[in-house]
C-alpha cells in the first residue's frame, strides 16, 4: 500500500464551480506526507445528466433516497469505474466529501460498492452533507462498517488529525465539533489533480471557488447555515488577496466564485480586500484582470459609503447574488432580514448606476406569509421590471418553496407558528408542513403565480418545467 490519499467529491449539487473542499484537503494530505488523488463524481454525473432523463429528473427534483432505477444503474457503473481506479492506486486512505444533504444517498451507494469491491484501507467522510445529516444516518455508516471516521464541522484540522492518527479530536467520530476561528491560517487550496477545463466557466473564463468566510452574521428563519458552521468566521482582506494571487500563480485563473454565504459579513475586511483587488486591477492588463461573483447581503442604506460601489466595480465584481426573500417587510422582519424596501430600492438603483448585476433569490411560502404578504411580494416584479429589462437584475431564483429544515429558527418555532406535518407520498417531511397560512398545495400555487408574474415582466428565470414536473409528483400524493 502506498502512502497516498484518494479524495472523492460526491453528487449531487449544481456543479457551478470547482469544488473547493477537496482542493484544501489535497494540501492537508501533502503536508501530512501523502500523495493526493481526486475524482469528482458530481462532475462526472452532472455531465451525463442531459442525456439521461431519469438522471436529470433526479438531479433537479431532490428525490433523496428514492433514486430511480435507471439513475442508480448509471451511478453504480460510475462508482465501479472509479473504485477500480482507486484500487489500482492502492491508497492508504479514501476521503469522501458530502457537499449536500442529498449526497447521503449517493454516498451510501459509493461506500457500499467500495467495500464490496474489496478496498482494504481506511475511509473517512465529511463535508456539509455529513454535518447536516441526522445522527442515526451517520451512525449507520459506522455501524455498517462503511467508514472508519466521520467528520462533523470544519474538516481541515480534523482530516490532518486522522491522517496523523492524532485522535481523539473534536468532531471526529463524535458530535463535539468546534469551529476553526483562525481562518487566515487555513491551508491554501491545491487544484493539481482537478481537470479545471471541464467545469462550468463564468464569463467564458476558467473559474475557481474561493472561501472568504464560514457561517453568517444573520440567522434567517429558513436557513441552516448557523447549525452547520456554528458561528461566523472570516478571513482577513489581506489573506483573501494572497489566496487569489496564489490561485492566479498556480492555475492561471483570474475569475473567482466566492462560496461564502455572504461576502460582506465583515464590512471592514471586505473593503480591505476590495481595495487590494482594485489596486491590482487598475494596474493589470485587460486579460489579467480579476473578476468575481458571490453572495451578498443587502444592508441598511446608512451602512454604506459611496466608495463601496466604486470598489465593487474596480475589484472586478460582476454579479452579486442576494437574498431578498420576500417583498413583504413584515415577512422579512420575521425571517430576521434587517433591511427595508426603501433599502432595497436604494441599493438596486446604486447597482444600476454602477453596472453591477444582481441575482435575486426569494423564498415563497414562509410560515408567516399571508395572502396579503404574498401579494406584496408580487409587486416586486412590477416595481423592478425596468431593472430586469436592463439586466441590472440578471437572474431570479424562486426555489422549491419554503422548506422546514431541522435546526433552523423557523423549525425551532414550529409550535408558535402552528406548523404540523402531513403524511404525503413523494414529499419529504421538510416540504410537507402546513399551518394557517399555507399548505404544500397553496405554496406550490403561490410559487407558480410568482414565476408567471416574473416571466410576464421579463425577469431572467430558469424554465418552470422542471419545477412543474417535481410539483406534479408532490401533488400526486396530496
Amino acid at each position, binding site marked *: 500500500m502506498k502512502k497516498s490519499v484518494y479524495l472523492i467529491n460526491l453528487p449531487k449539487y449544481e456543479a457551478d464551480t470547482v469544488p473547493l473542499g477537496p482542493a484544501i484537503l489535497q494540501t492537508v494530505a501533502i503536508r501530512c506526507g501523502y500523495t493526493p488523488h481526486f475524482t469528482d463524481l458530481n462532475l462526472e454525473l452532472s455531465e451525463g445528466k442531459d442525456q439521461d432523463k431519469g438522471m436529470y429528473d433526479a438531479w433537479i427534483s431532490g428525490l433523496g433516497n428514492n433514486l430511480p432505477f435507471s439513475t442508480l444503474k448509471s451511478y453504480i457503473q460510475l462508482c465501479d469505474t472509479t473504485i477500480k481506479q482507486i484500487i489500482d492506486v492502492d491508497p492508504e486512505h479514501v476521503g469522501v466529501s458530502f457537499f449536500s444533504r442529498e449526497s447521503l444517498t449517493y454516498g451510501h451507494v459509493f461506500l457500499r460498492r467500495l467495500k464490496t469491491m474489496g478496498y482494504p484501507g481506511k475511509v473517512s467522510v465529511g463535508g456539509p452533507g455529513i454535518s447536516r445529516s441526522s445522527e442515526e444516518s451517520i451512525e449507520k455508516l459506522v455501524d455498517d462498517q462503511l467508514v472508519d471516521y466521520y467528520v462533523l464541522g470544519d474538516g481541515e484540522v480534523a482530516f490532518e488529525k486522522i491522517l496523523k492518527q492524532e485522535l481523539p479530536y473534536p468532531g471526529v467520530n463524535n458530535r463535539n465539533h468546534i469551529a476553526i476561528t483562525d481562518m487566515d491560517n487555513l491551508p491554501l487550496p491545491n487544484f493539481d489533480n482537478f481537470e479545471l477545463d471541464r467545469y462550468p466557466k463564468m464569463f467564458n473564463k476558467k473559474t475557481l471557488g474561493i472561501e472568504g468566510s464560514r457561517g453568517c452574521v444573520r440567522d434567517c428563519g429558513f436557513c441552516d447555515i448557523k447549525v452547520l458552521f456554528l458561528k461566523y468566521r472570516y478571513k482577513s482582506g489581506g489573506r483573501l488577496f494572497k489566496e487569489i494571487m496564489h490561485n492566479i500563480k498556480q492555475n492561471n485563473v483570474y475569475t473567482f466564485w466566492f462560496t461564502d454565504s455572504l461576502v460582506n459579513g465583515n464590512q471592514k475586511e471586505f473593503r480591505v480586500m476590495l481595495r487590494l483587488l482594485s489596486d491590482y486591477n487598475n494596474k493589470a492588463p485587460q486579460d489579467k484582470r480579476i473578476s468575481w461573483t458571490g453572495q451578498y447581503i443587502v444592508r441598511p442604506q446608512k451602512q454604506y459609503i459611496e466608495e463601496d460601489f466604486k470598489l465593487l466595480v474596480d475589484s472586478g465584481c460582476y454579479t452579486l447574488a442576494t437574498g431578498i426573500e420576500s417583498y413583504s417587510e413584515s415577512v422579512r422582519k420575521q425571517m430576521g432580514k434587517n433591511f427595508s424596501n426603501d433599502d432595497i430600492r436604494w441599493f438596486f438603483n446604486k447597482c444600476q448606476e454602477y453596472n453591477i448585476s444582481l441575482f435575486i433569490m426569494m423564498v415563497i411560502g414562509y410560515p408567516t406569509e399571508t395572502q396579503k404578504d404574498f401579494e406584496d411580494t408580487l409587486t416586486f416584479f412590477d416595481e423592478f421590471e*425596468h431593472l430586469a429589462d436592463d439586466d441590472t437584475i440578471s*437572474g431570479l431564483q424562486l426555489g422549491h418553496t419554503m422548506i422546514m429544515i431541522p435546526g433552523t429558527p423557523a423549525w425551532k418555532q414550529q409550535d408558535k407558528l402552528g406548523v404540523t406535518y402531513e403524511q404525503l407520498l413523494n414529499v419529504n417531511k421538510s416540504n410537507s408542513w402546513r399551518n394557517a397560512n399555507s399548505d404544500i398545495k397553496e405554496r406550490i400555487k403561490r410559487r407558480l403565480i410568482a414565476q408567471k408574474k416574473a*416571466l410576464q415582466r421579463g425577469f*431572467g428565470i430558469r424554465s418552470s418545467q422542471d419545477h412543474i414536473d417535481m410539483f*406534479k409528483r408532490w401533488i400526486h400524493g396530496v
Partner: protein
Amino acid sequence: MEFNLAITLEHDFVREPIRTSVVLNDAVLYKGKLTEKVLEFTCEAKNKNSLKIFLHNKSPNDTVVDKQNNIIKDTFIKVKAIQIDKRSLKFAINDLGHIKYDTGEIVKNITYLSKNGYYEIKFDLPIKNFLQRYYSKWDKYKVIDTEKEIRSIDKFLESIK
C-alpha cells in the same frame, strides 16, 4: 407617444466650456454650453431612433500633456450612461455606439469624445423589446418561449384548483 431620456456625461475643458448638441433623429434636444452632468428630456418616440451627442469646440491646444506626454488635462465628453424610461443601456452604449469625428474617422465601441465630432447610438422603441433582444444573447436563464411557459403554468394551476 413619448419617452423619457436621461444622459449622464462626464466632461471637462481646458480653455473654454464645452459646446455641445444633443440630437435625437432630426430634432435638436439641446444646444449650448455643457454644464450639467445629467441631461434629461421627454422626447417624441419613433420605432427606430438615432441619438447623437456632439463636441463642437475643441482646439488642438485643448489637450495638456506633461513632459512624458501623459495627459494632465483635456477637453472631452464621455458618455457615462443613457437611460430610457428608467432602463439603463449599460454595456450597449459601448457595444452599439460609435464615434464619428469631424475628420471622418469612425471609432466603434467607445464613448469618449476626444476630438470634435459626435457619439451616436441607434435604438428601437419600445426599449423593453430592444433590450430583450440585446440581452437574449447573454442570459442563460432567459426563457425563450415565455408564452409557452405561461400556458404550461396556467394549465398546472388550473389542474390543482
